[in-house]
Structure formats: C-alpha cells, structure tokens
C-alpha cells in the first residue's frame, strides 16, 4: 500500500472522490496541503481572489454539473470568509465539501495566530462537519464527507484539518474506502407505495389542480419525470425561484414562477386550487405569503427527500418521503396502470379560467411595465433582449435584488441547471463567482451573470480570477444607480425615505474597470442600442464582457405579494392591486 502524508492523502482523496476542480486560496495552516497539490496534476486548483468567491464558484460548478463542489481554504480568516458561501449552499441544498486548514492540535484552544473554531462557527450552516485528528483518518473522512454532501438532501460538509495532521514527514498507508456506510445516516430513496397510491387517487379526482415544483426537481434530476407527469395529467405547473427550468419555461402548461414576485396566474391558480402537488419544495415564506391564509381549499400532496421539510411551514395532507425522481416515476406508472385520466371537462374549465387570468394580467401576454423610451431603458426589457439575443439558451446566474426577479420573470428557462441564484440565503455577490463555476462546467457555452451595480461590487475582485483562468463570462449589469429592491421597499413602506441606498456619484466607471482587468466594457444608454450591444457582447467568445446597462432608476418589480395576505393578494403595479 502506498505511503502518503496527510497532506498528500487529502489531495489524493479529493481525486478519488471525483474532484477535477478545487476552488481555493492558500494560507499558513493549509500549506502542507498546498504543497501536495503542487506535486500532482489530477486535481486542478483555481485560485480565486476571496474565499467567498471560491465557495460560490464551487457552488456554481456543483449546481451546473450535479457533482460535489470542492473548496480549500486556510484557517481563521480563510475559513470565516468561506462562511457566506457555505451558508448560501446550505440554504439551497447544494453539495459542497469545504476543506479548511486549522492550527496544529497542540495549539487549538490557545487563541493561536489565525485560529478560529471552524467546526463551531459553521455548525448551524452545514449538513455535517468533521475535524480530522490523525493522518490515518484522512481518506475515509473525506470519502464520508463527499457521500454525505451528495446523498439524500444535499448540502455542504466542512472538513477541518489541523496542520500537524498534514505533516509531510509522517506517512501512513493510503486506502480510499470502496463503500461508505454510516449507521446513523440512511437517506430515503423510494417513496412509500401506499402513500403514492393515495396521492394518485387524489390527483385523478382533482378538478382545479396545480403542480408546485421547486429546487428538489433540479437537485434530484427529476425534470424529465416532472414534465412527463404534467403532460400525462395535463395539469398546470408553477416553479419556485429555485425550481425554474425544472419544467420548460416556454411551455403552454407553465404558468410562471409563483410567490412574492410570481405571476398573477400562478399565484391566483394556487389560491383557488383544490389539489396541490408540491414536489421538492419547502413552502418558503417568499412563496406562501401568510401561511394560515395559504391556499384555503387545497389538499396538499408533498413529496420531498427530507422528512423535516414536510409539514414544517404548511401541513401536508399526503406526505411522501422519497427522492423526487423515484416517486414521480412510480406515480407515472400507477397512473398509466389505472388507465384513466382526470376529469377532462373539469380540467378544460380550469384551463379556461387560467387562460383568462393570463390574458388579464399575465407577464407574457401583455407587458406589465411601461415601454422603454429613448434613454429610459426598462430593466425588464434588458432581460427580454438578453433572452432574445441568446435565444433562451444561455446559462444565467444572478445576484440578489430587482435584477434577480426580472431575470427570473423574463428569461424563460427551458432546461434544468440553466438558472443559478442564491434563492434561500439571498447572497449579493453570488452571481459572478457562480458564473465562473458554471463556465468551468460548460466551456464554450454562453454564461451570463445578470446583476446590478450593488451586487456586482460585492465580489467584483473575481474579475481578476476570470482573466487568470480564462473564464469568459458575460456580466449584464442592470445599473439603476441605487440598491433597487431596498428602494422599492422604502417607496412602498417607508414613504420614499431613501435610507442608505444611493452612492452619491461614487460608482466606478464600470467600462474602465472592466478594461483595467483586461476585459471588454460596453455601456448601454439608449434602448435602440440595447440589442446590438448585447449581440456584440456575445460575439466575444473568449473574452469577459461587462455590459453596463443604464436602466430606469424608478422601476419596481411586480407582481408583488401584499403582506400579510394570501397567495392571490398582489400589487400589479404601483397603483393597481387585486
């Protein structure tokens, strides 16, 4: 058996866990590991400019590929800088393994230089964590970390490694385990057939059904099953922010995103539904509005791989614990065997009602916003132009704010793993590094980060890492000269008292900034040049392009839930509500 040091075993175990790219940043406590990394070619390290960027990039890569993202950082500030990225991954159930260096064991607890209790600091935002105490345990612990990160409901796992464990002078036999078994961890896969039978009966008797599908569809690779089931039943489908692309966005049966900024037709259909099939969702407060007014007449069937998600916020009438793909497969089969469909007449009537809602206030039938005129570019039109120019085929990441909602509303995602955003934690700064991870997963593809002048500045240092690693992402900056979503809330709830959302002419010249990093910068100030500039942007195949689009600073995102209220209580514009 080969003898390896703990540092070498760390890198070897990453390789044996399937890691191709390791996103990170070196430092004292991780130096033995970095030296082992230097002496091999299997695992490629991508040096970022900040540990937050490293975790978001690994997260973007994980979302794009379905594999586990891998991160390597040092102790202390390296570890704490990674925390925002770990929390982002935790809230969105993204599989990550984050390896953090730690001070030597003899120094732990002594407030040593760059010492932080990483296990303690990260505890509430990880699926699990390990501290490795002996070089002999490195391979097995890392193998376990990957198994836990990717199985069941995925999530981030931290592996904290004290420096003495990676000592290059202490070599131990290396053995990567063939199989991982953890007696206290057995995630469910197949759903309970009896429960599925009950659910199918309810689905076939439904008169006003809605399928409400979320991130679990994407994570569980169940988009295909969802589409087949929806077509088999002819039911309307709505996706959560995290589920976009889980059902084709341009399909007739898709009624748009639901929730706080969801479409009128999706939210209204949910409110009036008699049966809701909830798949891979968690009834987030940004979806339900006030929980006790949520969908008063609906029977709820809830499928999720995580039992603790079921009946957490809204009680489920028929809970089904299991992996989305396996449960939907069995559902499709049972419906086929039953040989009968739902009441066609009732469904026809339901569709007629939904189509009427669509015609009345739909986002896609008639624009809900004022038209762009001259130098007044509406951000919605910027996203629509992006959709048109990329023919709906680009991979889109976003940051957090109005631009995120406009992207979610107006870019119709037809494929899973085409849309990437920090849905749960709402992390500004996610978009650019995540786009780098996506670009690494799909070299040559068009990857665009739809962002705003606020969010982009939270991780803008990664423009430098884009150059170094030749990741030609496109940055579509909807620049409204203010923290737009906060401004919207201040308009609606605080009498337009704009507390700390303006920059007082301190914004950088983003074109020059991009050029300073060696990229192409384009500025769009007039609606007539919007499409041409976007076409120019995507014509640069090997360059990072920063498109700074000056958009209407007064625009709001609509629809918007009126809170407290039910799903159907919506502002449709600044003056109009349901």
């Amino acid at each position, binding site marked *: 058996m080969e003898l390896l040091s703990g540092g070498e075993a760390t890198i070897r175990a990453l390789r044996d866990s399937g890691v191709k790219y390791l996103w990170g940043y070196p430092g004292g406590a991780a130096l033995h590991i970095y030296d082992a990394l230097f002496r091999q070619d299997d695992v490629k390290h991508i040096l970022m400019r900040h540990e937050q960027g490293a975790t978001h990039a690994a997260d973007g890569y994980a979302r794009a590929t379905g594999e586990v993202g891998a991160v390597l950082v040092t102790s202390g500030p390296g570890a704490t800088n990674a925390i925002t990225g770990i929390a982002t991954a935790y809230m969105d159930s993204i599989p990550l393994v984050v390896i953090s260096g730690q001070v030597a064991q003899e120094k732990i607890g002594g407030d040593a230089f760059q010492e932080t209790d990483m296990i303690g600091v990260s505890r509430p935002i990880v699926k699990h964590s390990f501290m490795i105490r002996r070089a002999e345990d490195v391979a097995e612990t890392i193998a376990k970390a990957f198994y836990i990160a990717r199985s069941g409901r995925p999530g981030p796992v931290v592996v904290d490694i004290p420096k003495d464990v990676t000592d290059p002078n202490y070599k131990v036999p290396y053995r990567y385990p063939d199989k991982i078994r953890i007696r*206290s961890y057995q995630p469910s896969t197949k759903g309970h057939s009896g429960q599925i039978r009950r659910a199918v009966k309810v689905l076939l008797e439904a008169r006003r059904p809605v399928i409400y599908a979320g991130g679990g569809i994407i994570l569980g690779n169940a988009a295909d099953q969802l589409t087949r089931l929806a077509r088999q039943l002819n039911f309307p489908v709505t996706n959560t922010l995290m589920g976009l692309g889980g059902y084709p966005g341009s399909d007739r049966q898709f009624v748009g995103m639901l929730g706080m900024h969801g479409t009128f037709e999706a939210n209204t259909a949910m409110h009036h539904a008699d049966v809701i099939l909830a798949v891979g969702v968690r009834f987030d407060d940004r979806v339900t509005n006030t929980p006790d007014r949520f969908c008063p007449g609906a029977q709820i069937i809830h499928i999720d791989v995580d039992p*603790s998600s079921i009946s*957490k916020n809204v009680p489920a009438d028929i809970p089904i614990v299991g992996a989305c793909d396996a449960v939907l497969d069995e559902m499709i089969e049972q419906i086929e065997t039953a040989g009968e469909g739902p009441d066609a007449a009732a469904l026809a009537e339901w569709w007629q009602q939904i189509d009427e809602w669509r015609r009345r206030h739909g986002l896609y039938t008639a624009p809900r916003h004022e038209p762009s005129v001259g130098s007044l570019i509406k951000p919605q039109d910027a996203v629509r132009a992006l959709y048109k120019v990329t023919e709906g085929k680009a991979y889109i990441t976003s940051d957090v704010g109005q631009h995120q909602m406009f992207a979610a509303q107006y870019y119709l995602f037809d494929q899973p793993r085409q849309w990437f955003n920090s849905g749960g934690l709402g992390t500004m700064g996610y978009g650019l590094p995540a786009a780098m991870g996506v670009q690494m997963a799909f070299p040559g593809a068009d990857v665009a980060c739809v962002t705003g002048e606020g969010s982009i500045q939270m991780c803008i240092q990664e423009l430098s890492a884009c150059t170094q690693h030749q990741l030609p992402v496109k940055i579509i900056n909807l620049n409204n000269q203010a923290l737009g979503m906060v401004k919207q809330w201040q308009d609606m709830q605080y009498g337009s008292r704009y507390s700390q959302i303006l920059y007082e002419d301190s914004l950088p010249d983003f074109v020059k900034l991009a050029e300073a990093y060696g990229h192409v910068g384009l500025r769009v100030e007039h609606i007539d040049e919007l499409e041409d500039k976007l076409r120019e942007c995507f014509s640069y195949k090997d360059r990072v392009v920063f498109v700074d689009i000056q958009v209407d600073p007064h625009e709001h995102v609509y629809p918007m839930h009126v809170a407290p209220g039910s799903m159907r209580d919506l502002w449709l514009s600044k003056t109009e509500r349901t």
Partner: protein
Amino acid sequence: MRRIISVLLENEPGALSRVVGLFSQRGYNIDSLTVAPTEDATLSRMTLTTQGDDLTIEKITKQLHKLIDVVKVIDLTDGLHIERELMLVKVKASGDARAEVKRVVDIFRGQIIDVGPASYVIQLAGVSAKLDAFIEALGETAVLEVVRSGVSGIMRGERALRA
C-alpha cells in the same frame, strides 16, 4: 405539554453541541438534558425534556433525526415509560432541625449521604414532581444548595432503544 425525548447518538466530539445548537437555532426550549456513554462505548444516550404541542414535537424529532450523528430518536411520553431524576440537596441541619429533616427524608425515601456538624447532604431519586415536593416539604429548613441531574427515562416492557 411536557415531553421526554430520548436520543441515541454517536459518541463523537461535537455531537452534543450539534444537538444543543439545533435547539437554540430553531427556537425550541430545553428544560433539562442529560447525556452519557452507553454500555456500547461508541454510543451516547441523551434524555431531554422540552415543552411543545404535537406539531412542535414532530418538528423537533425530525430535526434531530436529520443530524448525521443521531442514530435513533423516540418520544418517551408517547408510550408507557419510567422517568427518574437524581437530586442532591445540602441543607442546614443543627439542633431540632436535624431530627425534623431526617423525618422528611425518610418519608420521601431519600438518603442522607453526608453528615456535617451543621449540615446534611441528602440524595433523592424520583420523578421530577416528587423532587419538587421534597423541596417544598423541607419548609423552613435552610436549603444551601440543590443539584439536579435532569430527567433520565426508559420505556417499560421489552421494547428497547438500540442502534
């Protein structure tokens, strides 16, 4: 409603802090908590008491199950069970009070396990309400110190909580 939850978990460093952290993170109360290794040294057994309606307890047990280190979780209050708590009480005992304290201890079937010139240490085991009642019964006797172990519990009959 008061509930007694038994948890079997890996005897690993950090496992306890994950459980305790879960309760504070999710806003659940812990009234008492005891933990120690079992006859199988790789496992610890924890008993915790908390308050909550059925829905809250269901959420707590699901969240506990979700922790990787947790092997088994049961709500003892769901079925027939035995609960015990150990209490050590130091009281001032001099003059007439010595005999009076001794009488109360006998009534409660406690034991005096340390005798000082002017103090006793009393050991008493039982359900929590009995321990409360004992303190009450001591009346005017000066209680110097009370140490309670928190509740430990076990199911009646042959059913057992095992890995």
